């Protein structure tokens, strides 16, 4: 194998101009546009659709809850995808939102996570197949899920068994960001205590949440990650309707005892979540999916392929061996007739 010699540091005498590469990359990326896939997982009625619509400031998905008595119950978790193209300041974002109606709603919730895990793995395997073909396209459409928003119901006590099992399984295949839904039902003390308990439970069960530790982060990024980790799970309130506060029309909820402003940091942590998802960690989420989860999936698949192909070879050899002794038997036994 060829070894690369240690590079020598050189000083430049004049301006070369290769620092414009960043701008060239930017231009290329602008043309191509970004692709971001989110999956929302949580029980009925926790405000998943509303939150997505609030984060991206547009009506993207409809609530799929059971609103009338004639509607039947969903017997299993379903996967429903919608795709939108959002454009802001010349930057185009193709957004895939995967909703999971029926999750956790049945009486017997065993294996309600399987359709979700299957869907996520299917996206990985589709990408892998496209990678492995001989005639590969220049730019593969990335349908792998980059982020999973997991909704925790605001009981105030602790995580439910279903939550823990699903979080464990999900955190192995996708970046999971837990979120406390409808957090306007918790007072500040309750919220703090609830978060503490959730974090201790997550630690107890060894559930790895995004953002992950990595050696390549510099200090600034690490500090940012730490602050995010402090705040997880985000306690949010979502709203698509506007209310008037101090003459301004903002998104919020009005009750007889007060008005909640969704964008007010004091009221809820929606702003942090939104910034986290869109302004600071969007690219990181995509990269982590590609580098960590997809690579893990890929290596497992290829190993399995190799094993299965070697097993096939072994079986073929065995068959050949079995065929030979039969032939030998037939030889001397023939003259009986």
């Amino acid at each position: 194998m060829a070894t690369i010699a240690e590079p020598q540091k050189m000083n430049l005498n004049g301006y070369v101009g290769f620092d414009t590469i960043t701008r060239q990359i930017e231009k290329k990326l602008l043309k191509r546009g970004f692709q971001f896939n989110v999956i929302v997982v949580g029980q009925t009625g926790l405000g998943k659709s509303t939150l997505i619509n609030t984060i991206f400031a547009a009506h993207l998905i409809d609530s799929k809850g059971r609103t009338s008595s004639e509607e039947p119950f969903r017997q299993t978790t379903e996967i429903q995808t919608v795709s939108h193209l959002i454009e802001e300041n010349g930057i185009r974002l193709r957004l895939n939102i995967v909703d999971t109606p029926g999750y956790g709603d049945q009486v017997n919730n065993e294996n309600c996570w399987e359709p979700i895990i299957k869907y996520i793995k299917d996206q990985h395997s589709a990408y892998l197949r496209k990678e492995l073909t001989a005639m590969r396209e220049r730019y593969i459409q990335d349908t792998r899920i980059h982020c999973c928003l997991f909704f925790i119901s605001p009981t105030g006590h602790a995580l439910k068994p279903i939550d823990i099992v699903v979080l464990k399984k999900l955190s192995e295949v996708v970046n999971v960001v837990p979120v406390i839904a409808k957090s306007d039902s918790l007072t500040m003390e309750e919220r703090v205590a609830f978060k503490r308990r959730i974090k201790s439970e997550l630690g107890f069960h060894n559930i790895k949440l995004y953002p992950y530790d990595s050696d390549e982060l510099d200090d600034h990024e690490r500090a940012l990650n730490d602050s995010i980790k402090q705040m997880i799970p985000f306690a949010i309130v979502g709203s698509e309707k506007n209310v008037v506060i101090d003459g301004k029309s903002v998104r919020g909820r009005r009750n007889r005892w007060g008005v909640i402003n969704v964008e007010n940091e004091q009221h809820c942590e929606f702003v942090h979540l939104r910034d986290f998802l869109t302004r600071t960690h969007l690219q990181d989420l995509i990269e982590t999916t590609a580098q960590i989860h997809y690579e893990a999936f890929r290596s497992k698949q290829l190993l399995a392929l190799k094993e299965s192909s070697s097993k096939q070879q072994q079986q073929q050899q065995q068959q050949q061996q079995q065929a030979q002794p039969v032939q030998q038997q037939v030889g001397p036994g023939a003259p009986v007739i």
Partner: protein
Amino acid sequence: MAILGDNSMGFEPDEIKNKIHEVVLKHVKLADKNKWMDIKLNDPNLKFEILRDCMSLTDRNIPNLELNFIETVGDAVKFYLGEEKKDLRIGHPVATWFAENEDKLPPNMTFIPYVKELGVKRENRKKLQKKGYFPDPGPWKIPQTRNVVLRDTLGIDALPRQRFNKTKRTPYVLNIMVVGESGLGKTTFMNTLFNTPLKEEIHPKNPQSTQTVEISPVHYELVEDGVTLNLTVVDTPGFGDQLNREHNLDPIVEYIDNQFEAYHTAERSPEFRRAIPDTRIHALLYFIPPTGHALKELDIKSLQVLSAKVNVIPVIAKADTLTQEEKAAFKKTILRDIEANDIRIFPTAYPDDRESVEDLEVRGRSYRWGIVEVENEQHCDFIHLRELLMTHALHDLLETSHTVHYHNYRAQKLRSSGRPESILACDDSYEHRIERSKQSMAEEMIKKEEEMRQNFVMKVREKEANLREREEQLNQRRQQLMAELEEQRLALASEEREFQELYNANRSAR
């Protein structure tokens, strides 16, 4: 005083007859229209229909006493025409004496003439007359009551107050069960409802630790204004928390049934029938999470099962997460769901009491954007619910749970244990059943006779066959013996001939 059979309605007798004729024709198809009076009214349904129509037409009820004796349509006609009945007091010596000495007797003493029993056989009639029974209206019938006009104050209007005083002293019992997923605020609600910290700490329960639903009843005794309330709050931690919630209802239903069972055995035992300790659940508060959508499958299934056993009051938990419009829409959706699934909830007369939000120390919850006051009607319906439970419906709850639910349970249990329906249900059907059973027994007897006869016939045939065989055999034997006898005779005859020849030969030789 009402005189039986008085035709004082102003109808002509023919009119009445025609009307009854019409009624009968309406209900029965007749071959011969002239024999409508002879139709027997044995079928209780038919009898009921015809007589009901007659009563509504002629606006005159048939007293229970007479109902028994109306067996054909003719009897009904006779009743309405008032043919047979007479005022028995006319000419009655005791009645005349009563009329003469009215002022000497106490004012509320009256004379009721003895009515001859039509359905009683002659032998029994004498017996009853001797024993001096009042006119027996028949089994399970209520004798005719008559209104009494009081001429002086009696003082029975103090009766309700007496009852009230007595019940005030006995302690009330109220057993409430709370069912709902963990974290919906059940414990906090109970504390708020009774204004006392029933459970000292609300430590967060760890939902993974509960594998099944526990039933934890806690007993309290609350005293207010001289009235004691023995309150039992049954909590169900662990409901709805596991992955597989199919069997979550089983412990709850078992508990409810066990309480009914205990009450039932207590009712039947002679010793402590007076003061049965009532542990039956009177009210079940079902907490619904504030999703905003319709009810989940688990909720609907649980409500269906539970509302058939106890009074269920559904409650929207943590309603401070909903705005006014959301709340109203949510309530409507829930009510529609409840109706569509035939769930009977308790306060169907109070449509707008169903919510709760509460907290322990401060009677309100303070958020950064405002403070929710629990007892403010504008904020939540807690006041309504408390009013419902305590003032309006406390007794209602107790009564419904006893009369409806407990009796349902009891009826089910008794029917399943094979006890026949009450034989005193209705007189006609009782007779019917007796007749039917008689018939069936007669049929059985006939069948058995047939069987026995056939058996007998078979046996006779067998025996005959046997005997014939034997006869055959004997005939054969006889023939055999006869044949032998013939042979022997022939042999004898031949020997005799020989002897004779020899003798002759001998004689001729001399």
